[in-house]
């Protein structure tokens, strides 16, 4: 650097030019070279990636289909580029799939790695690209590329650039050496001139301008600078002289200001001293005295005097003895005269000042026109006067006057000071007045205090009274501030929270005592109470010693006199013991209920276990009956069947009962036909009632709609139970089922169901007990009449489930009537007026309108029922109690307009039975030719014929009692010729042994683990002609199904190893057996089983015990789906 500094300006310029030029070129060359390299290194991998992608596209299919030859062929296309050393295709898993190697490369031992990217190695570039097909990565292509050629190119470029740099530098030197002179020479000249001026201090010298550029401007500026220095020198001289004159002016001004300030200071001192002394003064006079003294001293006036405003309110000014007298003897006269002379407002100097409330100044009292004391003052040689007021609440309460021995012009400053003195004094007046008022108030307070003392003594007594109550109260009483802190708590409360004293509790947050679970609710209660409500809460606290106590609190807001709430008052009771007792009770109740449920479940399970063997007994007995047993054996077998049937009924009862007890019974809501449901129940009882010759009467109110929403199964069960019960206890007489409409709306109908009998009746004291479980009217009757005693209990509970009460009225020896009233919703698509859909199926009953019908029956109830029903259809109805009477009526009306069209004739009647009556009618034309409809409880036409032996063929129709409504209608319609005979369904009671003997050639797979049940099913199926395969459980069934196909599979549900549900799921998973119907056989009778079976993929459901009729129906239903002549051969794979 030193070397550089020593260089001449010329050389420096030259060096600058060369260095700058050289550096720029080096940078340029380096950037150019660098750019070239970066360009090549960026482009090359991209180009190669494109090549790799093309290769990848070409081999993708080969890779997918694992065709290595095709892949290798695709790769060999790379030989076109000499720089490509090798290439490889990897599978997605990274395994080499195909390779390519440039000729002469020997063996490629590179380990390739599949990824997306490139990498530079010494002398080569590797590019790896994924092969993607439809978004899925199926492999990679890797290409190795030689960089040898690239390196050679870059080397050549570098050499060329260095040569270019050297030549350029040489070329730049020559012009730089010449050009520098134009700059350096003028600067050297200027430097010489500057030196000269500095040495000679001659600012008049000037440099010569040599060129027209910035250097020329520099010379000009240098000359201008010299000129300006000359000018500044002279200007400085002039300024110095002016400054001295101004200093003298300012000094005198300052003097004046200092004097003014002194004056002002004195005024302030006066005011301060007046203010201080007047504040110290206890009375106004004292303050006035001080003020007058001070003013006189301040102003130098010798005489001062004060007037006060008269207290009588006249506004007069009274002279005082407050004086300041400079020379006492001289002014005695003035003093005595003045003190004897009050002034009216506006009169004299004090009067004027008082009126105007402003200071006044008199230059010379001798010249004043309104000055009463002028002579005395003149005598005392006083000349000038001034006065000012002391103003309080707009009144001049005092006037101060001063006199001087010389005449004097008004001094504004003095007057202003006096106004301030007046203001200071007015404050003394104000304070004095205030003191007076205070004294008076103190006196009053003292009187009040005495009264308060008396009142508080009374209050203390009252409080003591309340405190005693509060302390001895057994419940916790506390008050809580709005912020939740405890204000008060009585001893009982302290004991509850285990607090030692009130100090432990007072001021703490009440919420801290409440347990975390309850604190929110307690806060809520507190908030509500503070808002003015009252409330009750049960909560738990945790006392000071950690004891938990349950509390019941009643809280009310506490209000102060103005009605604002300032606390909440709570009376709290310890209910811990009560709660314990309640909880113990609840625990005991739950235990009892659990026990009861367990019992019910046990019963349900037991019933199920009993059902399975029972199934075997029934099935085997049925089969045995079909083996042509001897008469005696057949009797025994029938007994076995009958006993089994009874046992099954008992088990069903138990099952229902336990379901109800376990709370698992629920009612359906499906549309059903009321009449059909009632008649179905009657049908079952009719079988049993027929041998006893009981009248079975059904009367369903014609007003009742047909279709309802409800649970027909359960309703039927109740009716069967009640009817069965009636039948059981009735030896003779009648059993009736009456359904009356009590009330109806558009949507529902209230129905009363009554089941009456003429049986033994029930003693009044047993009436309540009959509905109890396991109980009958008399312990002994159980043995006499049989039955579990569950029927009525179940019925009662079912009726209760339906929302009603089962009631009974009974009289010993006369009979009993059970009745219940339920409200059922009318099924949709039916209007409330009974024009139900059923009527669209039935023939038009209007044809019966006007038909005259004679009902002959010895049973009164039956006659009434038919009377009501037929009348509702529009028939003219005549009733008769016996055959002879009926014949008489027929004779009487024959030929007249009242002639009988149809006679409904009871078969069994005392005196003259129906058959005889019919015969008489037929034989005697005089009785008219009415159509005859028989009604009998003995069975159908054939049965009657067998039983009675008469000829019934001539009768128009035959009805079985209880008479079904629809059947009666169609029968009557056909009897009067309104419909054809063919449409009348003749009742046939299905013959149990008349089973359809059609045979099925179906292939059946029976899956059943119980050997007895298996035998039963096989026996029945064999009889049906089925081809049977057997599997003992689900697993074996699956094996059998491996190479055989079936038309139907009968599947037990509960089996060891693999149950029916699981087996079904397996079968359904197998394509071949997708369509094979699977029918579940189960002894499960609990709800939900059917759903479980269907969900598993079964098609139908057969509940055990299975009978041949049930099984036949099932096989028939399900094998019909299979076309018998197209057995699909089991396909082989």
């Amino acid at each position, binding site marked *: 650097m030193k070397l550089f500094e020593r260089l001449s300006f010329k050389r420096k310029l030259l060096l600058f030019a060369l260095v700058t030029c050289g550096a720029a070129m080096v940078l340029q060359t380096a950037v150019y070279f660098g750019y070239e390299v970066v360009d090549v290194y960026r482009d090359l991998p991209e180009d190669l990636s494109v090549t790799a992608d093309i290769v990848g596209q070409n081999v993708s*299919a080969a890779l997918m289909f694992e065709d290595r030859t095709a892949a290798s062929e695709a790769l060999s296309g790379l030989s076109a580029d000499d720089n490509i050393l090798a290439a490889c295709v990897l599978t997605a898993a990274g395994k080499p799939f195909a390779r390519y190697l440039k000729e002469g490369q020997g063996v490629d031992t590179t380990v390739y790695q599949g990824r997306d990217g490139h990498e530079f190695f010494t002398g080569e570039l590797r590019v790896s690209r994924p092969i993607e097909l*439809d978004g899925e990565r199926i492999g990679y292509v890797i290409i190795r590329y030689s960089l040898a050629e690239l390196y050679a190119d870059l080397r050549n470029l570098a050499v060329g650039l260095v040569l270019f740099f050297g030549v350029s530098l040489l070329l730049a030197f020559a012009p730089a050496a010449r050009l520098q002179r134009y700059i350096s020479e003028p600067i050297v000249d200027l430097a010489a001139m500057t030196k000269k001026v500095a040495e000679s201090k001659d600012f008049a010298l000037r440099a010569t301008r040599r060129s027209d550029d910035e250097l020329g401007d520099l010379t000009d500026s240098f000359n201008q600078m010299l000129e300006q220095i000359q000018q500044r020198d002279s200007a400085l001289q002039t300024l110095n002289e002016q400054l001295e004159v101004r200093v003298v002016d300012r000094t005198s001004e300052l003097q004046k200001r200092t004097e003014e300030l002194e004056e002002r200071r004195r005024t302030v001192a006066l005011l301060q001293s007046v203010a201080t002394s007047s504040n110290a003064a206890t009375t106004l006079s004292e303050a006035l005295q001080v003020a007058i003294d001070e003013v006189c001293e301040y102003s130098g006036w010798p005489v001062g005097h004060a007037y006060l405003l008269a207290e009588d309110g006249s506004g007069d000014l009274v002279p005082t003895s407050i004086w300041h007298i400079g020379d006492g003897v001289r002014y005695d006269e003035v003093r005595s005269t003045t003190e004897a002379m009050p002034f009216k407002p506006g009169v004299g100097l004090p009067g004027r000042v008082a009126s105007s409330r402003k200071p006044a100044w008199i230059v010379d009292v001798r010249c004043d026109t309104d000055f009463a004391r002028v002579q005395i003052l003149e005598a005392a040689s006083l000349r000038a006067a001034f006065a000012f007021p002391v103003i309080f609440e707009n009144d001049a309460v005092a006037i101060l006057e001063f006199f001087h021995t010389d005449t004097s012009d008004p001094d504004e400053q003095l007057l202003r000071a006096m106004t301030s003195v007046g203001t200071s004094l007015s404050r003394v007046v104000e304070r004095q007045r205030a003191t007076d008022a205070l004294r008076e108030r103190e006196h009053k307070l003292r009187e009040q205090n005495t009264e308060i003392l008396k009142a508080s003594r009374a209050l203390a007594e009252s409080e003591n009274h309340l405190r005693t109550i509060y302390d001895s109260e057994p419940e916790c009483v506390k008050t809580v501030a709005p912020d939740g802190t405890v204000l008060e708590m009585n001893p009982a409360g302290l004991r509850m929270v285990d607090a030692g004293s009130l100090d432990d509790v007072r001021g703490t947050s009440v919420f801290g005592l409440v347990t975390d679970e309850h604190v929110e609710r307690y806060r809520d209660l507190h908030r509500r109470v503070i808002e003015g409500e009252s409330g009750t809460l049960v909560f738990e606290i945790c006392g000071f010693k950690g004891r938990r106590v349950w509390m019941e609190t009643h809280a009310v807001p506490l209000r102060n006199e103005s009605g604002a709430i300032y606390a909440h008052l709570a009376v709290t009771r310890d209910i811990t013991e009560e709660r314990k007792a309640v909880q113990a009770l609840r625990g005991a109740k739950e235990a009892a209920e659990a026990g009861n449920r367990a019992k019910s479940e046990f019963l349900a399970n037991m019933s199920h276990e009993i059902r399975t063997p029972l199934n075997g007994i029934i099935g085997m007995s049925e089969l045995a009956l079909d083996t042509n047993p001897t008469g005696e054996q057949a009797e025994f077998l029938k007994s076995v069947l009958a006993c089994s049937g009874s046992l099954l009924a008992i088990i069903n009862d138990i099952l229902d009962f336990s379901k109800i007890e376990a709370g698992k019974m629920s009612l359906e809501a499906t549309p059903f036909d009321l009449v059909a449901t009632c008649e179905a129940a009657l049908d079952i009882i009719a079988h049993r009632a027929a041998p006893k010759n009981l009248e079975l009467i059904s009367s369903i109110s014609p007003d009742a709609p047909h279709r309802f929403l409800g649970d027909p199964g359960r309703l039927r069960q109740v009716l069967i139970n009640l009817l069965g019960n009636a039948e059981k206890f009735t030896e003779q007489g009648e059993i009736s089922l009456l359904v009356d409409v009590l009330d109806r709306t558009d949507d529902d109908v209230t129905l009363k169901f009554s089941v009456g009998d003429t049986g033994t009746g029930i003693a009044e004291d047993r009436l309540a007990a009959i509905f109890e479980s396991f109980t009958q009217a008399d312990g002994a009757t159980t043995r006499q009449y049989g039955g579990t005693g569950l029927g009525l209990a179940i019925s009662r509970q079912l009726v209760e489930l339906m929302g009603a009460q089962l009631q009974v009225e009974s009289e010993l020896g006369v009979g009993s009537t059970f009745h219940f009233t339920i409200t059922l919703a009318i099924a949709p698509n039916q209007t409330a007026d009974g024009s139900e859909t059923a009527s669209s199926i039935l023939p038009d009953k209007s044809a019966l309108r006007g038909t005259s019908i004679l009902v002959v029956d010895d049973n009164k109830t039956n006659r009434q029922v038919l009377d009501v029903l037929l009348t509702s259809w529009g028939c003219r109805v005549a009733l008769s109690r016996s055959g002879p009477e009926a014949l008489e009526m027929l004779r009487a009306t024959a030929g007249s307009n009242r002639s009988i069209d149809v006679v409904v004739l009871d078969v069994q009647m005392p005196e003259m039975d129906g058959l005889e009556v019919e015969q008489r009618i037929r034989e005697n034309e005089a009785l008219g030719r009415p159509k005859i409809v028989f009604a009998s409880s003995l069975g159908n036409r054939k049965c009657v014929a067998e039983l009675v032996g008469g000829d019934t063929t001539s009768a128009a129709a035959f009805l079985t009692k209880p008479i079904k409504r629809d059947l009666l209608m169609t029968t009557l319609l056909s009897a009067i010729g309104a419909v054809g005979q063919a449409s009348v369904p003749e009742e046939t009671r299905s013959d149990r042994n008349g089973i359809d003997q059609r045979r099925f050639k179906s292939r059946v797979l029976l899956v059943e683990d119980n050997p007895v049940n298996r035998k039963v099913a096989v026996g029945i199926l064999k009889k049906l002609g089925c081809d049977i395969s057997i599997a003992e459980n689900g697993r074996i069934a699956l094996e059998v199904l491996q190479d055989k196909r079936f038309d139907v599979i009968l599947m037990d549900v509960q089996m060891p190893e693999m149950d029916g549900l699981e087996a079904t799921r397996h079968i359904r998973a197998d394509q071949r057996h997708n369509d094979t119907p699977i029918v579940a056989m189960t002894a499960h009778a609990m709800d939900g089983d059917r759903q479980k079976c269907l969900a598993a993929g079964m098609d139908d459901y057969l509940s055990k015990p299975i009978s041949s009729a049930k099984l036949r129906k099932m096989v028939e239903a399900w094998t019909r789906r299979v076309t018998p002549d197209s057995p699909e051969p089991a*396909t082989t794979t």
Partner: protein
Amino acid sequence: MTGLVTRRALVVLMVLGVSLVIDQPACAQTLDAAKATRVKAAYIYNFAKFATWPADVFKTDDAPIIIGVVGPDPIAATLEKVVRGKTAHNRRIEVRRIAGVYPEAADELRECHLLFVCACESERIGQLWRLLGNRPVLVVSDIEGFAKRGGMIGLALEGGRIVFEIHRAAVEQTGIRLSAKLLKLAKIVG
């Protein structure tokens, strides 16, 4: 004593040997068959990728490609595994099992985009063509000579590999286009 030990060892060896003789081939055979099924399933999936259906066969943008397996072929289960979670042409692939070439199943068959026909259905192929007509359904089968007989893509075993033959005309008349890459690998038979 040594005699007894030797006899026992012999018995053990014999039992082992017998069981080896019995087990080995059966095992190998099933393994090979299983592998062939897997490869075929993979091929069928690949065909779906290399084939392009006319745009109107898909009702919506996300309608799946439906591959039907006709007849009780074990490939169905394997195929379901192969295509699980995969897509072709950005569509899900759904595998359906179709009982066989029955007229009742016509709608089911026509709903598919690709059908694999089990060899056991070989006698009903004629009926299949009648049911499908020229609908764009790509039919693949391992029935022998399937492609030559006018089937679209036939699979065959050749030199331990599964190769495929394509009847180009049969495919093209349905409007389905097969990728040139696929055709390059296939044996073109018509």
